[in-house]
């Protein structure tokens, strides 16, 4: 018997002649939690797709419990005792938990094509208990929060009694509280002897959970060691292949006294209540809040996407009436939303079309608004160079052909083309890798240095503390606190976010 539950030997894979994995060898021990980290495009997904039977390897072998394992389709992985918990939830939101868990293997009554409901409910109940989720198995998934859905996904994975669980960025859509709960469940699974592969960009989580950490870069393993020997700095260094002296750029902006965006007594029942805030020119204002605190909703209202009942929005001294996104753009507001795919980009359209979408009317000629193709293209290419976007020719390649970090740069770029005065960025670094994150921070710093007002919304506290001049803390639709840079303190901010007891504070302290 091999000491490994899952072993990869000399796995290689290339796409159209371009290597994605080069001779990768590693093993996963029983009851171990192994973290895989690396920048986007380092080969993590390719590797997991090979393990999951979605892609065939070009060369090399896979072993499960010392036996050769040759998956050709996803169901082979399931049979071999491997379960995936995906980053993007693969649940049918219109179906019940029951149906989701058994979607590929409904228990039948004998040989009849009829579903054995009682058996299904019994097994699902057990699985839900195991993940500490107390809802009826008949609940429609639509009604569950993202965190609860993630738990259902795990329950679904557990229902086939796997020996290996693979988590791919499981926390991206979870609140801190839900994340803690998830980690508790992961710990419990490990105690039960399950082997776990954990893939994440959040290095603090990796440090908290792992026994063993493997770092991938450009399809090769660049670092592999026990957790105890790692520091976050070492992880980052191995991931990007060079030493980075700092995670955040040195601040060069000087906030002025002039107000760019001012909000007075803004309310919308059930969403935000009596919001007062000022953002000055040249200032980076952070907004921290948990999911559901109303932070993104506030941004949507100020950008004119959602209505408000009371209060005033004043941009550069001018009160905004009958707000809508077109007005906001006229007032030089830019809004980088938290959902790049759904709200930021036209994924199938060319990078050029995406870059020019907002600014194209401003350079259009005449009453008929004829597109000035040359001007649009020059401007777009300038911005691509300025932001160092790594992309294929922008005219005939779709936005989806780029990596996440470059997609985010294109979203930022399309707004830069409108020459905005107020920049609202919601979760600017979600799902992008360390190197790209640094570049995004740099862009934000540069904007503020150029006397733009920047409002950064994020649930990553460290990031806000690294780049902001001031942090507003939001909870329950209200602003609970405002801290100047000198006063930045993790505990105080978290306390303000929860606006409550010390127990909560300590619970969150680990994150």
């Amino acid at each position: 018997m091999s000491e490994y539950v899952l072993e990869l030997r000399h796995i290689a894979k290339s796409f159209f002649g371009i290597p994605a994995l080069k001779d990768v060898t590693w093993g996963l021990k029983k009851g171990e939690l192994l973290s895989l980290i690396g920048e986007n495009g380092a080969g993590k997904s390719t590797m997991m797709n090979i393990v999951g039977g979605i892609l065939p390897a070009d060369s090399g072998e896979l072993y499960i419990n010392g036996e050769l394992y040759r998956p050709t389709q996803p169901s082979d992985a399931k049979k071999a005792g491997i379960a995936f918990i995906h980053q993007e939830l693969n649940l049918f939101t219109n179906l019940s938990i029951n149906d989701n868990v058994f979607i590929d293997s409904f228990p039948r009554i004998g040989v009849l094509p009829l579903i054995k409901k009682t058996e299904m409910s019994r097994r699902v109940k057990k699985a839900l208990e195991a993940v500490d989720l107390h809802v009826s198995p008949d609940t429609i998934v639509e009604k569950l929060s993202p965190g609860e859905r993630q738990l259902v996904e795990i329950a679904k994975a557990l229902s086939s009694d796997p020996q290996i669980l693979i988590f791919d960025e499981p926390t991206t859509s979870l609140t801190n509280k839900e994340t803690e709960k998830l980690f508790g469940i992961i710990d419990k699974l490990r105690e039960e002897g399950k082997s776990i592969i954990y893939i994440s960009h959040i290095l603090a989580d990796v440090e908290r959970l792992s026994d063993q950490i493997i770092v991938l870069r450009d399809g090769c393993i660049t670092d592999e060691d026990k957790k105890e020997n790692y520091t976050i700095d070492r992880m980052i260094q191995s991931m990007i292949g060079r030493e980075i002296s700092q995670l955040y750029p040195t601040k060069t902006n000087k906030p002025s006294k002039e107000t760019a965006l001012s909000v007075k007594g803004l309310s919308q029942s059930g969403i935000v209540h009596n919001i007062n805030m000022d953002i000055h020119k040249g200032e980076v204002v952070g907004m921290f809040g948990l999911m559901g605190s109303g932070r993104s909703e506030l941004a949507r209202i100020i950008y004119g996407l959602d209505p408000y009942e009371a209060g005033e929005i004043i941009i550069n001294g001018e009160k905004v009436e009958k707000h809508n996104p077109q007005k906001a753009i006229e007032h030089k507001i830019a809004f980088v939303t938290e959902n790049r795919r759904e709200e930021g980009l036209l994924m199938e359209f060319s990078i050029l079309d995406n870059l020019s979408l907002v600014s194209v009317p401003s350079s259009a000629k005449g009453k008929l608004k004829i597109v000035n193709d040359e001007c649009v293209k020059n401007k777009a290419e300038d911005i691509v160079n300025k932001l160092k976007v790594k992309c294929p020719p922008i005219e005939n390649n779709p936005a989806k052909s780029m990596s996440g970090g470059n997609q985010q740069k294109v979203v930022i770029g399309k707004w830069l083309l409108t020459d905005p005065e107020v920049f609202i960025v919601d979760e600017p670094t979600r799902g992008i890798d360390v190197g790209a994150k640094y570049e995004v921070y740099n862009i934000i710093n540069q904007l503020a240095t150029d006397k733009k007002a920047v409002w950064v919304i994020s649930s990553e506290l460290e990031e806000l503390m690294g780049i902001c001049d001031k942090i507003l803390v939001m909870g329950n639709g209200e602003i609970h606190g405002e801290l100047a840079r000198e006063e930045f303190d993790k505990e105080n901010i978290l306390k303000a976010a929860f606006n409550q007891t010390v127990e909560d504070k300590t619970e969150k302290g680990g994150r």
Partner: protein
Amino acid sequence: MSALKSETYRQKKPAKQVIQRIFLSEYFILIMSLIYFVCVIPFAPRIISQSNLLNLLSNLWPLLVIAIGQTFVLLLGGIDLSQVSIIGVTSVIGTALMSNSFDPAIFEGTPLWGWLIHENGGPLAGSAASVPVSIFVMLIIGTLIGLFNGFFVARFKMPPFMVTLVTQMFLLSFAIYLTQSRNIMGLPESFSAFGTKSLGFIPYAAIFVVLIALGAHFILAKMVLGKWIYASGENEVASVVSGVPTKKVTLFCYAMSGFCAAAGSAIYSARLGMGRPTLGEDIMMDIVGAAIIGGTSLSGGKGKVMWTLFGVFFFTLLFNTLNLFNLSYFTINIVKGLVILAAAFLDVIRTKLMTRMSIVNGAGV
């Protein structure tokens, strides 16, 4: 990367490469049509006779203008089922305005009798400007109906299928009600001339349609409005966030669809020499089918006026040849259905191939 790309290409035989290029080219349907045309000649030599070619072209214009209107709505990811009824309603109203005489025995029972139409014709009877004014009114009515559709789709987010299905039913019945299912006759000579005569070589209908088609092409290819239409169809949410006035864009597209349907109605009515409430009844499949064959996507964001032109050309040609073979109405419809199915299938394959090619191109990044 480029070195790699050319290497992959070099491995393929040139012939295969040419075929692949034709297959993926946006002229694919046009090339197919021409090949088909040439192949049919030996079996039905009559196809290249002057009278048949003229007939083919005269069938092309009205369908083309209507399908161009439909393209605007398809680009949004919507559909306009009401076009066929807009054709009927505008046909009836337009011809009622210009007709020179109504037979009391036939029209006395209609709701139009007395206040709009009389024994000696409609309100514009005998006027020199009766034909252009009537056509203008038809276009206005078509546009208004389109705006009505667009309003419900844009303002209340109602499914376009529902909204336009309802207007289709309502308008068809309304058109029949207006004339009590009679055809309106006694139209001025100059109106028939609009449908059948030419200015030199070029039929009036062709001039009319080509002008509209050029305008439509200009909007989609050159104007900001065109960019907005494509963007709204690809991702409405992202478009709203990017400041695209998606509601106005939606209104415009449905209005355009109604306008184009009315334009088609004018040509059909003129060719027929009468106003008929059920004029467009059975061409729904032709309109959508032609646009789809051209390559316009039902899910929005993809399509061009030129593609629709190719699709309509192919469809008209196909219909024409099937007629030449003296096939029955049912057989023709069966073949039409199969062709649309085949076109949809080819489109899926082409999209797949193109995605694969773009992965090859973009793989180095």
